[in-house]
């Protein structure tokens, strides 16, 4: 529940953003994000809400970290499971624009 997942903002419309998470797109709300968000920015997403715009110099490191996590595809790895669950929810949720 606590792990956020970073994604790239594709489009912004009011308080809603379309965000790409490793090829999966979902709608993320911008109500509580800490800084103005534009297409091309990266945000940290937590339960469907962006909670932080990831500063430019930190994007690469942040993504590398999650890539490592996702590659550790041990049969049952709770942390990777949490991240995958976040991504899976993106596929199922909100009308599933990438179903």
């Amino acid at each position, binding site marked *: *529940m*606590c*792990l*956020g997942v*970073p994604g*790239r903002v594709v489009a912004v419309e009011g308080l809603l953003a379309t965000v*790409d998470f*490793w*090829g999966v797109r979902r709608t993320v*709300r911008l*109500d*509580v*994000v*800490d800084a103005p968000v534009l297409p091309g920015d*990266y945000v*940290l997403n*937590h*339960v*469907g*809400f962006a*909670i*932080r715009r*990831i500063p430019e110099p*930190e994007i690469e*490191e*942040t*993504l*590398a*970290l999650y*890539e*490592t*996590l*996702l*590659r*550790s*595809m*041990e049969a*049952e*790895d*709770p*942390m990777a*499971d*949490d991240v995958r*669950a*976040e*991504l899976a*929810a*993106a596929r*199922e*949720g*909100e009308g599933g624009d990438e179903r």
Partner: protein
Amino acid sequence: MSASGLAPPADGEALRFRDPVRARALLRVLERATRPREADPVCLMHVCGSHEQAIARFGLRAALPKGLRVIAGPGCPVCVTDAPEVDEAVTLAERGLRVLTYGDMLRVPGSARSLADARAEGARVEVVYSVAQAVDAARACDEELVFFATGFETTAVATAAVLLGDPPPNFSVLSAHKYIPPVMEIVAEMPGTRIEGFLAAGHAATITGSAVFEPFVARHGVPVVVAGFEPLDVLAGLARLVELVRRGEPRVENAFPRCVTREGNRRAQERLWSVFEPAGGCWRGITRVPNGNLRLRPAFVRFDARRRFEAWLRDPARPAPSPLAQQCVCGDVMAGLASPSDCALFGRSCTPATPVGACMVSSEGTCRIWHQYGGHPDLGVSA
């Protein structure tokens, strides 16, 4: 990041540090700094389920020097949701209301029953990924819909945002949100623990900022280091903590500047505190925590399920816990007073398939994590 989909699964080398050289260097730093304390180990506590995941999956505990103990504190939001709070959600579901919640909550036991039990008997319990989906579901129907809202401040911010977004009148919130800083006060003063430093959770501090721990440090004279959840982040955070302990410098340090600033996410804080106020509440197994719960402010009382369904919740059904549940030591595990291996049920009557306590249900629960990794797994970095 390319948009080419998930990276393919790696082979057996998957569970390696990204930078084993740095990991070994950090372990050497820890060893040197704690050598004088081998007879009386430095005792540090983390307050984050993700920290425990990192520690267990990489076998860090077995690699830590003799002079250092790292214990798991109340860092799993699912686990600390109190049984009577689950009972309230179960009661509302059994009364026929649609109850929506996060997936991790489904199997968490109440006094005797979980939401999954209620659902198996026909109650309408649904899992959502986001509270925003629960609001959408309420908009799409006329009937009453209750969102059972659990999680720490990071998750409470999302609940606050939807309540500020003018949800439909048939939507209500049963808040079991918890606020981490106050429980650290309780744990720091608990007899039987002698914690010399705290590793605070990175993502919660993304919202509150590291400054939220400054009054705590001033009161208790123990250092707090905010750390990320990757093994190297955890090791780096522990190394900073040990150094602050050794030098006798109680202060707050931010070892996770990638996500955390001193002041935190002000916009999120404004929303959080305009909707919620801290109130005393029980954390499962621990105790009553002054200001440890997040309660809806009077301005939002019309969305408070406890008020709306007061008559049903005044005296919720609270069947006696099963004999097995009475032996569960989850509370002591979350307070850092016991290890899962101290529990007679652990791995025998209580497993991820048949959990007795909340700590075995959640992927962030200490018992579940230890069960997954065998408690003290071998380390992949020391060779």
